[in-house]
């Protein structure tokens, strides 16, 4: 059966964001599919979200939820083919990037929108010095000389607090520790002071102690430059301190959006609730740890109806036939909860029950 999502309900803007200037980046009804040997994998099925300057959007989801694919589509680094964007818009300052020329998009990449990848060791070129790789940004985009670029590279390394930057600028990625390498990735993304940074699981590969340092640095720099930040993660713990709003993704769809603290307090989707319940807590010592049963769906055969229904503890018949739209969530008395939305037929029961 064909699954067509007619949900176009916008993610409601969070309070405080200036409505008139418009968001920095807006993703509208984005679809991405991959043509593989096993069939068409529908990785993203109508995603909507937006980020404004100075705002942090956390995109949360398991692997296979489409969170990284969405980011790659924004960056224009999707592998096409087998990837395809059959439908949707990605608006940067109101202009659809999907209709831009290759050259226009290239000029946005790195200068206006930059990306931080998960595994800095493999994401940095192993045979070029970090100074070269950082300086390259200035040489290519600003036409600086080799020498000027190197000076800028040192400056950047200082800014992300790499000790003895001057001595280490000619070192190679493998000579740095994991945390230092991720700082270099951040420095590279920051180089041209872009409007928006997409960080794809920036701390997943790091030690827990280093994770916090790197996240703090990222948050601090974001405030300093007033950048928009899309933080892609599967780690609820990382999100709580830095994000303004959260979009939870499942099987290529946003299933819940909310300002960060409200999501933790009162999830409006059974999947989000499951995620929150599976965080180990000290006060539950001795009890069995909760886990969402089942596995994420095969993207070539997404279940009919709500994609989460086979794993959902409160699934009803309607969940197996009708795809729930992402609807605004209200209080029991009908007062609107700004910025909140849930794609569950039974959101009322979930949030108020």
């Amino acid at each position: 059966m064909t699954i067509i999502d007619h949900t176009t309900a916008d993610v409601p803007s969070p309070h405080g964001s200036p409505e008139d200037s418009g968001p920095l980046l807006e993703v509208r009804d984005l679809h991405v599919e991959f043509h593989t040997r096993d069939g068409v994998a529908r990785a993203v099925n109508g995603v909507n979200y937006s980020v404004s300057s100075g705002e942090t959007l956390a995109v949360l989801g398991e692997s296979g939820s489409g969170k990284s694919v969405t980011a790659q589509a924004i960056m224009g680094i999707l592998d096409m083919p087998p990837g395809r964007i059959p439908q949707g818009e990605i608006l940067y300052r109101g202009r659809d990037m999907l209709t831009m020329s290759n050259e226009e998009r290239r000029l946005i990449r790195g200068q206006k929108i930059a990306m931080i990848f998960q595994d800095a060791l493999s994401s940095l070129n192993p045979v070029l010095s970090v100074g070269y790789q950082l300086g390259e940004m200035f040489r290519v985009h600003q036409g600086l000389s080799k020498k000027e670029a190197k000076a800028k590279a040192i400056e950047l390394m200082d800014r992300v607090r790499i000790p003895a930057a001057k001595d280490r600028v000619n070192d190679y990625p493998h000579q740095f520790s994991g945390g230092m390498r991720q700082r270099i990735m951040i420095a590279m993304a920051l180089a041209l002071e872009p409007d928006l940074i997409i960080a794809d699981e920036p701390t997943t590969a790091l030690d827990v102690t280093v994770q916090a340092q790197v996240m703090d640095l990222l948050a601090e720099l974001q405030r300093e430059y007033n950048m928009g930040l899309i933080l892609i993660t599967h780690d609820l713990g990382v999100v709580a301190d830095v994000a303004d709003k959260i979009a939870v993704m499942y099987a290529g769809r946003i299933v819940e959006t909310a300002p960060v603290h409200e999501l933790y307090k009162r999830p409006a989707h059974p999947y989000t609730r499951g995620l929150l319940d599976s965080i180990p807590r000290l006060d539950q010592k001795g009890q069995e740890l909760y886990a969402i049963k089942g596995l994420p769906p095969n993207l070539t055969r997404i279940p009919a109806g709500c994609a989460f229904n086979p794993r959902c503890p409160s699934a009803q018949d309607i969940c197996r036939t009708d795809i729930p739209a992402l609807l605004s969530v209200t209080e029991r008395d009908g007062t609107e909860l700004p910025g909140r939305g849930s794609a569950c037929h039974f959101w009322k029961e979930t949030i108020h029950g």
Partner: protein
Amino acid sequence: MPEALKDTVKDQPAEAPVAPRTDGKVGKPRSLWSDAWHDLRRNPLFVVSAVLILFLVTMAAFPQLFTSADPRYADLAKHYLQKPNWGHFFSEDWFGYDIQGRSIYARVVYGARASILVAIVVTGLVTVLGTLVGMLAGYFGGWIDTILSRVTDIFFAVPFMLGAMVVLTSFTERSIWVVILSLAFLGWTQIARVARGSVLTIKQADYVMAAKALGASTSRILLRHIMPNAIAPVIVVATIALGGYISAEATLSFLGIGLAEPAVSWGVDISSGQEQLRNAAFVLIIPSVMVSITVLAFIMLGDAVRNALDPKLR
């Protein structure tokens, strides 16, 4: 779709196509070998080369099945350099006659044996010797490795063809076994290096550590744990080398220091055919094509096996 560098970045998004199945079909655990076999059967390169090799090996084993003509029977008067009759499939005059009036088709059929026998036996010998040296060097390390590796280096430094020429010219009577032993004597180094590298990697594997910790004997570790896992790259290299030895045998015969008349071999025929290159090129070209097809078959097989055994390339 405006996408820069469409064909530059071949990055499979880690998320999309690898999502675990939920359709309840959990495949039974498959080993590297059964997985490889599964892959091979679907690879046209493998099927074509395997059929070809089967055909050639049958020809080498039972040449009588393919022709009733005698490859040594010379009829100078009747058939001197008679041109091929391309339409006469599998008949004596299909490929014409050489300068002594011998049926080229019959010679090509009977010539398969020498080439394929040499190649298979040499490959067998170098595989055994090379694996042994490589495994011992890789597993024991230390001075054993130092000595074996230096010896390998020494043999490796002497160009294969040159070495074979030096050895073979010393023998005035060059039977097929002299050729085989000479090639094997010089050819084992490549396999030894591959086997050593492979053992060095596997030695570090957890299951070998576990076997050691459980007190397994050295020979048991080598034979039961290391060998089966280290052998895959060796097999790949050996299959490709097999093609190389067919080519080497032909080259040596062509140079006049491999097999010689009255032996029937493709190399011998190519060698004697070169004098008529100007007026009867087919005398040279037909056995050359046979050599090339045979080498191609083995190299394709090796290629297919490599792709099947190396999951990284999939």
